[in-house]
Structure formats: structure tokens, C-alpha cells
């Protein structure tokens, strides 16, 4: 049921499209209410999100903090909401500070409902082509690190 597409667009954008089997006001809530966000916006390997604060209004700020299962590693993201059109559209800026240099992105999310299903389209724009490349590549390194952790668990 989950046909997701994730594609580069132009020289500095990534576009993610995914359909959900739910009306869009529920999907919209899941993206904007902290107690709901904390339940799904996680990593792939047991990371949790102990901190999630969202002041959901134009000009309002958001703060998301993740922790690794052993509590030794963390990642954090700050957001600012630029446009809000409930339950159809959110434009926000993100600063990701889990990397040596903070990474900024500008994200437009649209929610379109049809026959009780909601299609989410996220256009993620990075400031330069190099930053987009870096995000894609670091995602890979993290994924590889996780795979190695799993491998270690299996052989030890």
C-alpha cells in the first residue's frame, strides 16, 4: 500500500511523495502535535524523541531532539513555521545541528485528500547543491554505521 517516491528535483531539492490511508486532518495532526510526532518521527534503529516542542503558528518555533537507544548519542533539529494552512499546507524552515556544520533546509508540505486517503508531498530545498549531496551522503554513512552495529550484535 505504501508507494513512496523520493527523487532529486533540480540541483538542490528532494521531493518525497507518500499516500496514507487516513483523512488529511488526522495526517496533519500527526505532523504537528508533539505527542503524536514523538511516536513516529524516529530513526530506523530504536532511536527515541524525548524532546518535542511545537509552537504551531506562523513565526512559531519547533524543537525536536532524538536519543540513541543507549542514550549516548543525540541529534537535534530546530524549526520555524513560515506558512500554515490547516489542514492543507505547511511551510517551515529547519536547522539540523547533528552534523559538524548546521544544515538548513526549507520544506513545503502539502496534504491532498481523495477518497479518504491523503497524499503528502514534501519539497525539501537545501541552500546549495553541495549541501543536498552532503545530506544524502551522510544519510548513507549513518545507515552503514547502523548496519555495522547490527552486524556486531549478530557476531558477538
Amino acid at each position, binding site marked *: *500500500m*505504501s508507494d513512496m517516491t523520493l527523487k532529486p528535483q533540480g540541483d538542490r531539492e528532494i521531493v518525497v511523495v507518500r499516500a496514507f*490511508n487516513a483523512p488529511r486532518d488526522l495526517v496533519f495532526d*500527526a505532523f504537528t502535535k508533539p505527542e503524536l510526532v514523538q511516536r513516529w518521527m524516529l530513526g530506523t534503529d530504536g532511536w527515541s524523541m524525548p524532546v518535542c516542542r511545537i509552537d504551531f503558528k506562523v513565526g512559531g518555533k519547533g524543537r525536536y531532539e532524538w536519543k540513541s537507544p543507549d542514550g549516548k548519542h543525540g541529534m537535534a533539529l530546530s524549526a520555524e513555521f513560515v506558512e500554515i494552512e490547516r489542514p492543507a499546507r505547511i511551510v517551515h524552515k529547519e536547522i539540523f545541528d547533528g552534523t559538524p556544520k548546521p544544515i538548513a533546509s526549507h520544506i513545503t508540505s502539502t496534504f491532498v485528500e481523495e477518497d479518504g486517503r491523503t497524499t503528502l508531498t514534501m519539497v525539501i530545498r537545501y541552500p546549495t547543491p553541495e549541501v543536498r549531496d552532503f545530506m544524502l551522503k551522510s544519510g548513507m554513512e549513518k545507515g552503514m554505521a547502523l548496519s555495522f552495529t547490527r552486524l556486531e550484535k549478530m557476531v558477538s
Partner: protein
Amino acid sequence: MTLDTTFAALSDPTRRAILARLALGEATVNELAKPFDMSQPAISKHLKVLEQAGLISRGRDAQRRPCRLETRPLADANVWLERYRALFEARFQKLDSLLEEMKAERAKRKPSPRGARK
């Protein structure tokens, strides 16, 4: 080689078609120009972009200079996109189950019209 160079080279339909053709085996500029109904210089321009992106290499034979597909940058770009995709997909699958719960919760609070008695 940056990913951007790869993506930019792949953004053009003619260049993608050229790569698809080269996946079947090497070909000269003339052989490539034929099915595309394009002039040789126009094809050569596309080949230059592909070559700069490392997606193809050209033979040494000065006369023919056959083009060959280089799969490495394409494979790298795919691996990177796959990793990114895996993270999103893992999150969205958690969101799927959360949404099922939210729908069930809503149905409990407010019976749907279909479930209501006439």
C-alpha cells in the same frame, strides 16, 4: 564527482535514452544519433555532459571513439537515494500504524454515518 553532476546529467530525457541504449552495448556517435533524429553535434553535446559526469567513457580509437556506459556513479547515486528513502519509509510505516489508531479512536468517539442506525 558530486551527486549533483550525476543528477544534472540524468535530468535530460535524451541523455537518459542514450544511457539506456548504451546499457545494451557500446555505440559510436553516428549509431547514437540515428534513432534520436538529432544532428551529430547535438548528440556530441549530450555525450560531453555524460562524459563529464563520469556516466560514460569514450574509446581511444580516434575514428570511432565508441561510447561505453560507466555504471559506478549511477550505482552510487542510487545507493545514496536508497538510504534516504529507507529512513523516510521507516518513519512513514510507524505513521501508518499511528494513523490506524487515530482512526479507530475517532470511530469510537463519533460513530461513522455508515455505522449509524437508520
